[in-house]
């Protein structure tokens, strides 16, 4: 687990929810996950490819997403799944945007793909050689889950080289 790659996402999520909701947040739970990720609500999946690779999932229950949307819009929003999905996407964009800014400024080069909403019942597999970290953040609107699986592409290649030489 590469904490130096994961920490920016945790910090960004914490800051985005605290600033957006103007209320303190708390990391309620943190766990390693090698299993397929099963969403708890509406999950936005973002892929990252380049010198560092992996994926980040932001997962909120629809009612939590609608509470956040209502808070940010400053007025009642349509209580629909579409609004909830869009809210999760925009929150994912903010979390990813803030975290990749930090990683980019550290010199890593990579491409971030737009968030994809995941609503299927089957789980989301992590990378083949990457375990994921699942973080539960307690916010003023409810629980938010972040699932992060990241690794260095170049370092992995280098690690594989000696093994190949033995073949």
């Amino acid at each position, binding site marked *: 687990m590469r904490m130096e790659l994961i920490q920016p996402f945790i910090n960004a999520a914490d800051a985005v929810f605290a*600033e*957006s909701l103007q209320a303190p947040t708390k990391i309620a739970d943190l766990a390693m996950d090698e299993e397929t990720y099963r969403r708890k609500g509406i999950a936005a999946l973002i892929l990252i490819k380049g010198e560092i690779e992996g994926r980040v999932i932001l997962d909120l229950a629809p009612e939590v997403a609608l509470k956040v949307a209502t808070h940010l*819009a*400053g*007025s009642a929003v349509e209580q629909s799944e579409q609004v909830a999905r869009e809210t999760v*996407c925009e929150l994912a*964009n903010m979390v990813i945007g*803030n975290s990749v800014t930090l990683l980019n*400024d550290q010199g890593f080069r990579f491409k971030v793909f737009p968030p994809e909403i995941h609503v299927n019942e089957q789980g989301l597999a992590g990378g083949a050689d990457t375990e994921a970290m699942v973080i539960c953040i307690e916010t003023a609107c409810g629980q938010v889950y972040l699932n992060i699986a990241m690794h260095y592409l170049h370092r992995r290649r280098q690690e594989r080289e000696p093994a190949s030489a033995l073949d």
Partner: protein
Amino acid sequence: MQQFAALLRKDSRPVRYLVVDDSVFARKNLIKMIEMFGGEVAGEAGDGLTAIAEYNRTKPDIVLMDITMPQMEGIEAVERIVRQHAEARIVMVSSVGYQENILAALQKGAKHFVQKPVKPEVLYEILRYVLSDDPTAAGAPVALAGEHRS
């Protein structure tokens, strides 16, 4: 809720904004802040192409422009708007705040940059700054409602 002195044009009318973001949710959030600042929404757009059309139609005082959008991204829309309207005042609003993005937007003619999540007090100060450079204001500082001006 924070209170802000209204940002007004030189003619004391509300500042008119064009809000460009592919997320309705993000637009609503910005519109809420615009209303807090005493502004008026001239138009909305969800992509760069529509933003150009809406700019031509509404001639806003300020454009709040997202970067990552479908069809045409914000930076390209900035370039096209500024090419046609050198006086355009565009503030980029994006989650991604790394230097290359900011520099690219500024080089294409954007006046400023604010990172999401947008804090009202930060956006307010940026708008004050951008409006103070208002060419239609003939060098006069932006009028703030309730602010004493000699």
